């Protein structure tokens, strides 16, 4: 064999092929590779979402963000339900990534309001102090190039509604990217987060915790509600505004922050827990 290159080539290709076929070709033909999605339905991408996805690829977001939640306790707590095979049916290519320099985005859809994303993408540090993400200011200024959208949808065999193509007019690249981010992971319903009942404020009149509450507020809340709490991507939460919303006391604030508001505010309970939320709530009412 070591004197006959032809024989050597044949044996080498055979040795190469066994593992290749079993590990990459066979899974295509097994139904168990992609089990049907229990408790949800996957929708094909709309033209706007697909263009957003292509911008996600253009900007190389997948170099720092993964799109698979693993079935680990801490990960499900941080991101949401673990990823299922059927959720990626329309993903050509997949964008699972290999490194979380930033957080996983598999369940980012619906977690924050659109306004959070539009501000965050243009100036990440304004919303997340200490973040090392680069800003993407040009996305907001560039009109979306829809010249090839119809062809892209056809290549991927995605259904197109007439009004969806018209809706691309006047959209910016930022609009498309946000539309894509907002649909990620929404095929599976997020389990509702419920705050504990009978909350009692452990820090009533305790001024010692206010500075810690302040720094927690600045890290986690100020990005949307503003440093002065007068509102930004989120609503204003000054004293009078809170009373308007029936959120007058600390327990109300903790409950809202714990559970979040669908499409407007993430549920912070699993992230921050009772103690930190109480400190934040006491800081808010102290102002």
């Amino acid at each position: 064999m070591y004197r006959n290159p032809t024989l050597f080539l044949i044996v080498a290709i055979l040795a190469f092929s066994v593992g290749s076929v079993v590990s990459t070709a066979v899974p295509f033909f097994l139904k168990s590779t992609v089990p049907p999605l229990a408790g949800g339905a996957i929708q094909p991408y709309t033209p706007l979402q697909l263009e957003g996805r292509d911008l996600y690829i253009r900007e190389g977001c997948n170099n720092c963000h993964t799109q698979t939640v693993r079935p680990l306790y801490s990960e499900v707590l941080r991101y949401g339900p673990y990823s299922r095979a059927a959720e990626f049916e329309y993903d050509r290519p997949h964008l699972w990534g290999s490194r979380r320099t930033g957080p996983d985005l598999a369940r980012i859809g619906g977690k924050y309001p659109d306004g959070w994303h539009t501000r965050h993408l243009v100036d990440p540090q304004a919303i997340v102090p200490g973040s090392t993400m680069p800003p993407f200011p040009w996305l907001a200024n560039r009109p979306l190039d829809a010249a090839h959208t119809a062809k892209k949808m056809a290549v991927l065999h995605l259904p197109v509604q007439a009004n969806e193509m018209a809706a691309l007019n006047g959209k910016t690249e930022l609009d498309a990217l946000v539309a894509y981010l907002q649909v990620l992971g929404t095929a599976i319903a997020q389990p509702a987060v419920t705050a504990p009942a009978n909350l009692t404020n452990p820090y009533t009149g305790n001024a010692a915790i206010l500075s810690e509450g302040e720094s927690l507020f600045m890290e986690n809340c100020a990005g949307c509600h503003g440093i002065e709490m007068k509102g930004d991507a989120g609503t204003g939460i000054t004293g009078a505004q809170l009373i308007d919303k029936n959120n007058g006391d600390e327990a109300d604030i903790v409950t809202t922050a714990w559970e979040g508001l669908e499409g407007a505010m993430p549920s912070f309970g699993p992230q921050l827990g009772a103690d930190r939320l109480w400190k934040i709530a006491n800081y808010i009412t102290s102002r």
Partner: protein
Amino acid sequence: MNARSAADIRVMRAYAIWTVIWGVVGMAVGVVIAGQLFDPALNFANTPLGPYLTYGHLRPLHTNALIYGFGAGSFFCMQFYMVRRLCRVNLLSAGLARFQLWLWNLTVVLAALSLLLGMNTSKEYHELEWPIDLLIVVIWVCFTINVVGTIYRRREREMYASLWYMIGALVGVAILFLGNGAAVPVTLFKSYSAYAGVNDANVQWWWGHNAVAFFFTFTPTAMVYYLLPKVTRAPIYSHRLSMFGFWGLMFFYLWTGAHHLILTPVPEWLQTVAIAFSMILIAPSWATVFNTYMTMTGRWEQMRDHYLVKFLVVGVTFYGLQTVQGPLQAPRLFSQLIHYTDYVPGHVHMGTMGFYAMIIFAALYYTVPRLWKTELFSEPLANLHFWLALVGQLIYNITMWIAGIQQGAMLKEIGADGSLAYTFVETVTRIVPYWKMRAGGGLLFFIGALLFAYNIFMTIARSQREIAAEEAYA
């Protein structure tokens, strides 16, 4: 020297020069992106060049320049060099090799421009869009015809171990590249993968992990089997061990791609198979390591006396460490902690900086003086390069392993009240100091590479001076 072998030597010289150039470029980009990670201002996002220089554009540029520029260039140079020596004939066609040279350089330039412009498939180490993929296929076909064609015309009955590894690299990279590259074009600059979701990810890591074997390992291993006996003047310890190593890699590697997808939606049986075969891979990988160490038996003093032995033996040592650390990362228990953290870039860079680059440096230090018929410009400088590369690489690896384990543990930590102990950004700010140290390590490695480039070009300049002196004398 006849005209044909003179033509062969001219084309190999050109490959050597371009390898050094693309190596310096790729490593410079590596230092820049190491800085971007801790200082977002280095993305220059708010300047007119912002859309082209963010980390998401430069990171693929870094990997592609060092794979398709530096690595491929050295492989072209060294495979041509080795195949001529081991078969004792000239290349099948120096003209084809020269055509391939310019097509390859054109492709590297187009690749860099397209990545800066954001044209990419998103698939790791396969980011280039389909027209550039096609150019790479043409290059690889030219390369394969030339090397295999030369083997068929050899004047040496037996094919030496280096030739097996070279054939393995040619065949393996070709199949992997075509299999993973399958895509449907939309425009000249945009295509979509032929596969979707889980299968796309699985095929991608079949490519991704086996590129580590057939690209990053096979040709450097061929170089080790060629250079070690040349430099130490000792025969390879065991022919049989090299056979075991070759066929082991050739068979077992292909099963392991899914260890990049542990605890993802990829079928569990595939993950388990990949983990098991990853463990098995330690044996054939260590065949090369054992062979190197046993060849050195009774000659270890050469590690002190000969700079090339240092590069080679230390390179193989990191290959040995790499091929133990890699399999240990595969089992779910460890993977769940370190997957997606800096531990993995730390691991990858032990292989690329410690093994791949070390062997390529050694190969060019060995070959360039022979191609230009002179002596190396400066051995002390090469020794300094060795220490800068070694220390820089170790700083890189160790800081990233610590950062990875620390961040992995912080992300998992649950507080007394059942909530997560740290927000994501808190885990990032805590590893920023390690990112700064890593950039320092990378910078040392890069300074070493600059010394390497200087040494190589001064060697070439010395040869020109010698030729001029000879002509003046004649």
